[in-house]
C-alpha cells in the first residue's frame, strides 16, 4: 500500500495553458523541449518562468522547430528523463513522423496539444483537426474539457505512460483559444513534490546507458517488423485499463477523477449528445432549458480517445435511443466525416447494436457554437429520429451556401 501524501491545494485563476505549465512543474519533469506556436505558447513561457525562478529544476531546450522538439524529447526520454513538450496544429504536423517513432521506440513522453485548425487556409483558431489527424500514431490521447482536468490529466499521463504495461507516449488535448487562453479556477498543489509517490521517478523503459549498452531504433526487415507493431497494439489495449486505474488512484488520493467517458442522464434518454473538449460545457448549459421542459437528454463526453473505449460507448448506446455526435474535425472523403462518430459507429456494429448515430460537424476553425445551435441541432435530431431517418452524410452545421 503506497503512502498517500496529504496535499494542500491552492485555488488559482489559471488558463488551461497555465494549468498545464503548473502540472509540468508538479510532475518534476526533467526536460522540456518545445517551440512556440499559437495557442500553445504561454504553456512554455510559464514553464520558462518556473525554471528561471528555480521552481522547476528542468533543462529547457529552445529547439529550432517542432520536428526538433520531438526529436530532442525522444533523445531525452531515451536516457530516462521525464520529458514534456507542447504544440498545436502546424507544429504537430511538422513532428508527425516522430510521433510514430516516439511510440515505436516505446518512450513515455507527454505532450499537450492546444487543439487548433490545420492550415490551409491559415487558422490560429481552435478545432480538433490537428488532434484527429494524429490518431494513427499510437499515442494515448486524453481530451480535457476544463483547465482543472488538464492539470490533473498531465500528472496522470506520466503514470500512464511510464507503466510497464504501456510504455507509450501520451497526448493531452484541449480546446485551442477557448480553453488555452480563458481563465478558470483551478486547484493546484501548494508544494511541487506532492505527487512524487503517485508518479515516482523510476525509469524502467529501455534507455541508453554505458553500463548496459543497447541499440535503439534498429532496422527491422519484413521478418521482424510486424511483431513490434503488434506489441504496440497490445500496449494500447492494456492502456485502457491503465488509464482507468491511474484515474481511480488519482481519485482516491486527491479526490478528483474523470473516468474514460463522462456521462450524465443517459439512462432512459431518447437522445444522447456525445462530444469532447470544452464544447461539453456549452452543451451542458444549453440543454438545461430543454431538460426543464421535460426533454430526456443524455450527455456523454469522450475523455479517452485513444485507445477508443468501444465497450463503454456501446454500453452508453444501449441505454439511449439515438446518439448525436458533435465532432470538431472533418475526415475528408467519407460521407460520415466526424472522426468520433465513425469510431462510435464501428463500436456499435462490432457489438451488434442497432442505434441511430447522427454525425454533426460543428465548431470548425472556431466557428462559434451557441446555445441556439445546440437547441436547433437537438430539434433536428428529434426530427430525424421520429422519421427513422438513417443518416447518410454528416451534417455540416451552419456552413453558408
Amino acid at each position, binding site marked *: 500500500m503506497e503512502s498517500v501524501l496529504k496535499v494542500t491545494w491552492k485555488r488559482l485563476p489559471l488558463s488551461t495553458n497555465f494549468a498545464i505549465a503548473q502540472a509540468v512543474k508538479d510532475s518534476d519533469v526533467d*526536460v522540456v523541449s518545445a517551440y512556440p506556436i499559437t495557442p500553445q505558447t504561454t504553456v512554455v513561457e510559464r514553464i520558462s518562468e518556473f525554471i528561471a525562478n528555480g521552481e522547476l529544476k528542468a533543462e529547457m531546450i*529552445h529547439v529550432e522547430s517542432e520536428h526538433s522538439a520531438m526529436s530532442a524529447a525522444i533523445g531525452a526520454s531515451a536516457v530516462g528523463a521525464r520529458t514534456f513538450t507542447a504544440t498545436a496544429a502546424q507544429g504537430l504536423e511538422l513532428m508527425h513522423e516522430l510521433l510514430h517513432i516516439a511510440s515505436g521506440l516505446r518512450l513515455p513522453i507527454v505532450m499537450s496539444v492546444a487543439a487548433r485548425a490545420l492550415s490551409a487556409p491559415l487558422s490560429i483558431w481552435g478545432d480538433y483537426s490537428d488532434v484527429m489527424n494524429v490518431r494513427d500514431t499510437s499515442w494515448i490521447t486524453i481530451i480535457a474539457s476544463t483547465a482543472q482536468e488538464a492539470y490533473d490529466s498531465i500528472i496522470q499521463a506520466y503514470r500512464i505512460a511510464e507503466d510497464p504495461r504501456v510504455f507509450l507516449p501520451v497526448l493531452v488535448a484541449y480546446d485551442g483559444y477557448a480553453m488555452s487562453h480563458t481563465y478558470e479556477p483551478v486547484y493546484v498543489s501548494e508544494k511541487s513534490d506532492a505527487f512524487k509517490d503517485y508518479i515516482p521517478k523510476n525509469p524502467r523503459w529501455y534507455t541508453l546507458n554505458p553500463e548496459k549498452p543497447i541499440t535503439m531504433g534498429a532496422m527491422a526487415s519484413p521478418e521482424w517488423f510486424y511483431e513490434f507493431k503488434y506489441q504496440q497494439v497490445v500496449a494500447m489495449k492494456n492502456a485502457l485499463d491503465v488509464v482507468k486505474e491511474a484515474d481511480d488512484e488519482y481519485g482516491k488520493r486527491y479526490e478528483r477523477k474523470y473516468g474514460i467517458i463522462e456521462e450524465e442522464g443517459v439512462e432512459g434518454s431518447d437522445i444522447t449528445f456525445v462530444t469532447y473538449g470544452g464544447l461539453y460545457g456549452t452543451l451542458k448549459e444549453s440543454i438545461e432549458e430543454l431538460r426543464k421542459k421535460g426533454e430526456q437528454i443524455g450527455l456523454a463526453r469522450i475523455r479517452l480517445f485513444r485507445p477508443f473505449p468501444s465497450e463503454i460507448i456501446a454500453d452508453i448506446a444501449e441505454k439511449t435511443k439515438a446518439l448525436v455526435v458533435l465532432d470538431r474535425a472533418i475526415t475528408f472523403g467519407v460521407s460520415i466525416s466526424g472522426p468520433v462518430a465513425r469510431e462510435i459507429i464501428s463500436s456499435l456494429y462490432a457489438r451488434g447494436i442497432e442505434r441511430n448515430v447522427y454525425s454533426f460537424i460543428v465548431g470548425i476553425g472556431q466557428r462559434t457554437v451557441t446555445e441556439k445551435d445546440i437547441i436547433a441541432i437537438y430539434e433536428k435530431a428529434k426530427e430525424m429520429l421520429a422519421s427513422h431517418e438513417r443518416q447518410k452524410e454528416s451534417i455540416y452545421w451552419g456552413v453558408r451556401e
Partner: protein
Amino acid sequence: MMAKPYFRTVYDVPREEYLAPGHGLCAGCTAGTIVKLLLKVAGPNTIVVNATGCVEVSTTPFPYTSWKVPWIHVAFENTAAVASGIESALKALKAKGMIDPAKRINIIALAGDGGTYDIGFQALSGMLERGHKVMYVLYDNEAYMNTGIQRSGGTPEYAWTTTTPVGKILKGKVQQKKPIAEIVAAHRIPYVATANPGYFADMMNKFKKGLEVEGPSFVHVLQPCTTGWKFDPRYGIVLARLATETALWINWQQEEGQFSVTVNVPRRKHVKHYFELQGRFSHLTEEDIEKIQKEVDLEVDRINKLVGRTVIGPLVE
C-alpha cells in the same frame, strides 16, 4: 600553438574494439575504418546518435548490432536535435542526482553528408547555436549513398551521381560542394576540424579534441566510397591520401577561433591523380581538370595566406 598531439603512432591507438565485425558495410568502405577509430578514441562511456544512412542501416539490421556502446537511431534529419535532447537530459539527471554527476559520458552525433548538408542542416545549426556539448562527426561520401548514389549538397562539381548523370547536355553535378565546415565554423563553436582516414593519427587527435571541448564540436571526415565513387575497393585509403596530397581536401582545424592546417603538404600532386582512379569522374575532359586545378591553386594560395606561411606547397607531380 597546437598542444602536443595525443595520437602519434599506431602504438598510441587503443586495442579495445567497440565496433564489432559482421556488419553489412561494403567491402572496402572507409566508413568502417572511420567509425572503428572514432569509437576507439571515445571509449565505452559514449552514446552515439546516428542518422539514417549507410552506417546506420549496415550496422543495425535487427536482430544484429555492431555497436558495443549505447546507440540510437531516430530519423534522417534530426541527429543533432536528438543529441541535444540526450545532452540536456543527462545534465538534468545529473543535477537531480539520478546519474553520478562525476560521470563523463561522451555524446557523438554521427551522420552522413545526406543527413547533414541538406535535410539535417537545420537541426545541426540549432544544436550549435544552443551550445550543447556534443561532437558531431560528419562522414562525407559526397552523395546519398544509402539510397543508391543520389547527389547531395556535399557532392563535388562534375561528379557523376544517379541524379546528376553524365548525358549529352549535362555532365555531372553543376553546383559546387557546399563548404559545410566553414559554415559550421561561422557558428563560432569551440572546435571545428576536417579530417580524413588516410591520416589516422591526425583524425583521431581531432576526435579526441572534439570530445574534450566544453561545447559543440564538429569533425568533417572525407569518406571515400568504393561503390558510389566507383573505384576498386582496395583504394579507399589511397584515395583519401590523394585528396589531401592534391589539396582537394585540406586537413585543418579551428580551435577557439584559431585556424591552422594540421597536415602539411610540402610537395603537392596534380588533381588528375585523384580523378583518374574514380569512375564518377571518368568523363572529365582535360579542360575540366585544368579548370579544377586552377581553382585548387587559388584555394591553396588563400589558405597559405590565411595561415601566414606555406603549409601547402607547390605542384610537383
